[in-house]
């Protein structure tokens, strides 16, 4: 007879400090399902974001030109003609099919963020609607369900991941917010808010960590080494680290007492973040065992921006516009996976590319057989004179989805309870835009600057989600998909920003 050990017993015994605790076999009931004493398995929530639309400007769905040759190839556009399960695998979805994941996610299409076609006045914007300027106007309503009021990249309420982080607590980290694209890549301007997809609330973005190496160390350096010889060093390093940080936090009152009101706010925030680091360090590390393992050190990060002649972009430098985001996304997916397995966090966002991304897509499209000489943003706007329309855009989308598929595959291959970790998760793939009426002029069709004909993928079986089919909505708001996913992981409300109601079809 297995010893029954409740999670609460273990957690309480550690002085109430937040602990990452993987699911131990002795916590399962005899069916290997929900834990003894009715404590459910942890539910995970993640968003994987792609900074691109679904088609090329002025090119109809499935219409393309590749290396000068035009064609109309059905199946290039992400949305298949069939609904329900067993639909035709379209070009962008191929990585999911290759990994036998077609039954593990729902494809939700036809989503639409409302906007006023007759007026550009901010007062005319409908609830949960978009200000008539893409890209900024579409960002907030997609991420947080609250209408945008300007061109700024911002949210006016909390994003879904942060709402979930608020009630779905487990492990030392409320959420893991990471990004693959590390640089802006254009010399005359900079990110200006395009680098945020997680917001704690109105105009309160969370800065993503872009270094896989730093994510690795911040998550896993706390692990107790398995090699007994290393334990003493590890303990020493940890004590030393705490001491040197406390020398800083000890001076908080003196420093804040010296400065004026404005500086108090600025510096207080910095001291608060250091204090937060101390709390994270003080937490007991996860217990390694079962699926929870100390991953291999990924080593130094790939170089930023390609061949940089100087340091970062401080001297005139080659702007090849690519920092091996493929490797970065893969590493970050690995880290999210293990953070979930070890229950260090239950919420993650991975922004592969930023809104309006100027990442060079030649390095990612050439290996896929469709070389595009443009950046991701220009690709949708016919930047390459020879290769335009559906196939190049879908190829970029396929590249993004390949990282999503990679993550799903790892989660699916991680046994947990009677099934696997994906069974206890809701993992969303979120492109920035759709392919319908242009938001700017409200007239042009087949536009990349569109919040119509948007798509979201929802993977996992948490909370009754029934994946595997294509759900074609009649212009439902993307927020309804997010409400559904949030409810699947325990959200008890029915609203999200200014959006109400889940999509019942996601639950079968």
């Amino acid at each position, binding site marked *: 007879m297995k010893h029954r050990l409740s999670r609460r017993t273990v957690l309480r015994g550690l002085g109430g400090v937040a602990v990452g605790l993987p699911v131990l076999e002795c916590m399962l009931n005899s069916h290997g399902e929900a834990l003894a004493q009715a404590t459910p398995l942890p539910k995970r929530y993640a968003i994987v974001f792609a900074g691109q639309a679904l088609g090329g400007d002025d090119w109809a769905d499935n219409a393309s030109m590749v290396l000068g040759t035009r064609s109309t190839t059905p199946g290039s556009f992400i949305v298949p003609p069939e609904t329900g399960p067993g639909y035709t695998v379209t070009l962008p979805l191929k990585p999911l099919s290759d990994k036998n994941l077609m039954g593990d996610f729902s494809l939700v299409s036809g989503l639409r963020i409302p906007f006023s076609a007759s007026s*550009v*006045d*901010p007062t005319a914007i409908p609830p949960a609607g978009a200000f*008539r*300027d893409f890209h900024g106007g579409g960002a907030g309503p997609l991420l947080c369900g609250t209408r945008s009021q*300007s*061109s700024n990249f911002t949210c006016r309420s909390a994003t879904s991941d942060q709402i979930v982080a608020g009630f779905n607590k487990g492990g030392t980290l409320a959420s893991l*917010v990471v990004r693959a694209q*590390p640089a802006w*890549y254009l*010399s*005359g*301007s*900079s990110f*200006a808010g395009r680098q945020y997809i997680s917001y704690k609330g109105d105009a309160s973005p*969370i*800065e993503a960590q*872009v*270094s896989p*190496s*730093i994510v690795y160390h911040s998550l896993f350096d706390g692990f107790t080494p398995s090699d007994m010889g290393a334990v*003493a060093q590890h303990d020493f390093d940890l*004590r*030393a680290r705490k*001491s*040197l*940080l406390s*020398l*800083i936090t*000890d001076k908080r009152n003196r420093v804040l007492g010296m*400065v*004026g009101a*404005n500086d108090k706010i*600025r*510096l207080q*925030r*910095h*001291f608060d973040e*250091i204090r*937060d*680091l101390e709390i994270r360090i003080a937490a007991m590390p996860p217990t390694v065992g079962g699926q929870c393992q100390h991953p291999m050190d990924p080593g130094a990060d790939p170089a*930023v921006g390609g*061949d940089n*002649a100087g*340091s*970062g*972009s*401080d*001297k*005139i*430098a080659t*702007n090849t516009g690519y920092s091996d985001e493929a490797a970065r996304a893969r590493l970050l997916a690995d880290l999210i996976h293990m953070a979930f397995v070890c229950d260090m966090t239950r919420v993650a966002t991975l922004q592969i590319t930023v809104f309006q991304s100027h990442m060079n897509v030649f390095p990612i499209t050439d290996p896929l057989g469709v070389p595009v000489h*443009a950046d991701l*943003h220009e690709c949708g706007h*016919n*930047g390459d004179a020879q290769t335009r329309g559906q196939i190049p855009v879908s190829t970029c989308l396929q590249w993004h989805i390949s990282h999503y598929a990679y993550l799903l595959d790892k989660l699916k291959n991680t046994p947990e309870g009677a099934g696997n970790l994906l069974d206890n998760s809701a993992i969303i793939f979120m492109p920035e835009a759709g392919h319908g009426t*242009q938001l*700017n*002029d409200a007239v042009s069709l087949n536009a990349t*600057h569109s919040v119509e004909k948007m798509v979201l993928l929802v993977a996992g079986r948490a909370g009754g989600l029934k994946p595997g089919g294509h759900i074609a909505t009649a212009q439902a708001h993307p927020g309804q998909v997010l409400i559904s996913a949030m409810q699947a992981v325990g959200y008890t409300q029915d609203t999200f920003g200014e959006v109400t109601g889940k999509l019942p079809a996601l639950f079968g």
Partner: protein
Amino acid sequence: MLSVSSIVLLTVRLASSRYESPFSLSLAACLAVLGLGCQGSIGDAEQRGTGAGSGGSGGGGGTTVASNLASASVARRLSRSEIDNTVRDLLGDATNPAGKFLQEDEYTPFDNDYSRQMASAALIDSLEATADDVAARVLAPANRSRIVPCTPSGPGDAACFRQVIETVGQRLFRRPLSEQEITAYLTLQSYATENNPAVSHDFYTAVALMLRSMLQDPEFLYRIEIGTPTKDPAVLHLNGYEIATRLSFLVVGSSPDDKLLDLAKADALSDANQRRTEAIRLLADPRARDQLHRFHAMWLGYRAIPQTANLIAAFNLETTKLIDRVIFDAPASYLTLFSSPDSYLNDLLADQYGLPHPAGGEGWVPYGTSGRAGILSHGSVLAAFSKFSDTSPTQRGIFVQTRLLCNTVLPPPANVNVDQPPPATASVCKLDRYAAHRASATCGACHNNLDPIGYGLENYDIGGRYRTHDDGHPECVLPGQGELPGYGTFSGPAELGQKLIDSGKLEQCFVQHLLRYAVGRALRPEETGEVETLMGSFKASDHSLTELLLSFVASDRFALRQEDPVQ
């Protein structure tokens, strides 16, 4: 008359403008609406400050109007570049660790805009990684003697550790440490001395911990300015260390050296002449050249350009040589940066530009009658502000208006999609497609102030090469005839440069950008007078940049501050 809704639209849109003048956008909003046009002159700025700078209220309400005697300042976090320069200069680590571990700063257009700085968990984690990386390198046996001047008698040598704490701490915190602080760092010595045979540790273990702590400390990372009240309680006089910090980061982009710290200790930097003398010393430092190179790359937008590594290295050589010559090597009016009749080329560049090869493989080559003169002819500047792998007359127009004339350019109306190239028409020629920008009065209102500037540069592609027609379309001739609105027609960078110089606004816009860089934010209305004062010095010295910097440093203002009420 603009309708009410479009005025609302314009003012709302401004918050997102990429096309900022050095002055804050709220001011520009007023100007735009008042001017009912697409450009406003910052010289017309509505004054909010009172004349005598008494800081009295402007009438009604309880808000104190800012004094125009001193600039508002906050605790400014060091930029990535400043951290790297500091660890190189103070600790000998020249590997640019902050560039590796910290995210890039936002550029507006400079990388030191404090209004964009916000502490976050990601920042703290990155700073910790940076500190650990630096400490490991600096305390490596081959390097450690640089910061450990004594030979410790053993792991518990408190006297030696104290010496390190005092000397390194003073440099990193830019002020002497108190006895209380030194005692606190001394407690780290327990990690050197603890009885723990399983762990390799020695005297230097404690030093590494000290260094890691200091490098993550807000008193290192932020340039905290407090000051003591003057006769006007709102205007504060900086102490010597605060002045030393300002001076050093402005001129060489790095922390004060020991000489400056000694002068600070003796309170010598309150004396304008001493500040001037030190500024002269720092301007002779090679780091001052790097600082000015960086400033120009950010100001003129060529920080990272879409060219091959070889060409970029060549452009870098060309542009830095010109900057160095105008400012340092053969000092002349700063305006010759925009009019110089020659350029420093190598063979690659000579071929790129269609100019004669320099003797000996690299050297100054006269432009002759090629139509080029000054920095606007350089590949670096010509490569910036491109779009869709070609030049954009509109973007180049925006560059000239905002970065060289300091006119505000309003963003396009929200419902216009600027991410598409000008629409294909019956003609494949670029200039014909750009005609769409003149199609309506609304579009033309802005585009007629932008596109004509770019047309005048169209013969120079994004590699700086001269061309007579669209790439791949010999039938699409590029006449290269342009206009600088308000100043007449021109063709090519030499004529454009001369028009800008003759306008008298280029020099003022440069000064505005320099001041913006110095204060680390958009300028405020109460700083208009300061711009005028600096302009006076600039003109009086026949546009000597070094003299401009010296008079700025020597001004009373440089030793003063006031609280920044804006959050």
